[in-house]
């Protein structure tokens, strides 16, 4: 019988450092057949292992048109400290894809608003990549992304690339002004303030908001004021997980298992859940 807890060995193909403590890693299945047949939906996550150290949960942060998987992680604990040292050619483990996904099909024909703070770029990047690869299917795309300082912005180069695409607005911001002389073409403000100035209209629009709780809390009323309904505002939760399979009993909010029924929820779903975040 299959062993649902056993990961697949993956080859690290590329590592790109993003900030002082964030790296983006590209991996492929060591088994070419598995690599060719692997499928996932935008917004799903995986469990990544450093053998001998442990497993960690990260979103798959690239679109699903590639023959690889990318994830982006912040160095913060035991597993991620060790993951920091991986180099191209190394082997790590992967289990997944797990969880539900963004309804990219249902979003067709709509304007998309992406709001992200700090390390929360990865769960949004996959959706942005997908939307840009299928540009004709979506309306106006607005991306509001902020971090504490310029040095904390993840995927900086891509932000500028995305801004070149037709009918895409990228608004980047930092909480703290960069030192005199540092090149910076974004704003110095909190994400919700920039979102407010973005002039979002609720008509035919969906939003995906991921970031620290305070950013989410202050961004929601702005989207609601703009006319978005709770059903049109999506987020991706990050409850601590171990199995990813609905068995280990760790990730639930009330009767909702985030690993299986999430991590993607609308604001309407969240309002029905107990405050166990």
């Amino acid at each position, binding site marked *: *019988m*299959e*062993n*649902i*807890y*056993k*990961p697949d*060995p993956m080859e690290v193909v590329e590592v790109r450092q993003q900030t002082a403590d964030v790296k983006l890693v590209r991996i492929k299945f*060591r088994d070419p057949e598995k690599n060719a047949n692997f499928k996932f939906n935008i917004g799903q996550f995986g469990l990544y*292992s450093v*053998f*001998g*150290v*442990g*497993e960690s949960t990260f979103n798959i942060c690239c679109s699903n048109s590639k023959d690889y998987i990318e994830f982006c992680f*912040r160095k*913060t*604990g035991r597993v*991620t400290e*060790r993951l920091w040292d991986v180099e191209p*050619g*190394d*082997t790590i*483990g992967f289990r997944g894809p797990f969880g539900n996904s963004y309804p990219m099909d249902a979003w067709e024909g709509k304007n998309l608003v992406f709001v992200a703070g700090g390390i929360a770029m990865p769960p949004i990047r996959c959706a942005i990549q997908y939307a840009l690869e299928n540009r004709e299917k979506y309306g106006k795309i607005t991306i509001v992304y902020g971090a504490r300082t310029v040095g904390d912005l993840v995927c900086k180069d891509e932000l500028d690339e995305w801004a070149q695409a037709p009918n895409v607005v990228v608004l980047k911001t930092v909480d703290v002004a960069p030192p005199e002389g540092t090149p910076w073409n974004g704003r110095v403000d909190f994400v919700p303030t920039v979102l407010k100035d973005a002039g979002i209209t609720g008509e035919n629009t969906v939003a995906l908001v991921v970031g620290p*709780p305070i950013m989410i809390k202050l961004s929601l009323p702005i989207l609601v004021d703009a006319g978005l309904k709770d059903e049109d505002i999506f987020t991706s939760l*990050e*409850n*601590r997980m*171990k*199995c990813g*399979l*609905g*068995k*280990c*009993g*760790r990730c*639930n*909010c*009330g*009767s909702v*298992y985030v690993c*299986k029924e999430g991590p993607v929820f609308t604001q309407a779903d969240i309002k029905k859940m*107990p*405050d*166990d*975040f």
Partner: protein
Amino acid sequence: MSQIITLDQLKKTLAEKQAQGVDIIAPVLRGELAFFQHVDDLEKAALTPRVRFQNSIKEFFFPRHETIFSFVRQGSDVQLTDAPEFERQQIVVGARPCDAASLPILDPLFAWDYQDRFFQQRRANTTVVSFACKETDGHCFCTAVGGAPDGTAGADAILFELGDGSFEVRCLTDKGKALFAGKTSESDKTGAACEPPKIDFEIKPIADWIRNNFSSPVWEEVSLRCVGCGACAFVCPTCHCFDIVDEGSYSKGKRVKNWDSCQTALFTLHASGHNPRGTQGKRQRQRMMHKFVIYPDKFDFNLCTGCGACSRSCGVMFGVRPCLEALAQAASSSEN
């Protein structure tokens, strides 16, 4: 007509199975304490019904520590070796009805979309023989959750001690019939379990209260005495939360599943330092919600058999029954 078996014949039957390579798990006394464990010599098995055990039979289906796979690093590659499949056959004898009842409760969890072969293979390869209860104590509350001293859920056969060195045997499944075929004799004696425990609360109104009082201060109040040791989860036949950790070194080692408990602060601590369940009250709430709201929502079972093992082993006289009683009070005073 009933079927009976003498204690000697029961031991002989088990010894024959053992000779065929079947593992026998039975109560063994260490001093006054009874443990379920593998027995080599059936003369050491304490085959009589009892209320108090130091462990539940859960660990023979869901071990406290279990290897998932092992690995060896070879240069930049890593070779993984799957843990062996569970191919042995085992017989658990002497289980309490409330212990056996945990098995059908856990079945749907380990088969929820993803099939956990570790539990499922053990479950398929195990015959469970329970003993109807002869006594209850103040911790027992099986009747509140649909059980009974002669409850048959999860058992392949249930034995009733007759007091004359023999048991009435009631086979409940094909596995039970196969075990006792040709081993019993006909008799007109029938066994009976003890009186069910007396309970003065009902689960339904308490579960409703739990569902509607997520933010009640009652949670912190009832949990003040809890030290968060997690013993309740380890002795519980239905608690199944687990951790996944690596052991060994960077070059060679294994990944294991270990029992865990929602009563410890680390259980849900995020890497950011944020903890959705940062207090004992929130953790107790999770435990009670999981047992009486979440699990019924998901799988139509209470995640509790009313065995009382949690409060029996609790260092501060807490546990599910004392908590239910405290919540019943809160529920009735909020009605008034």
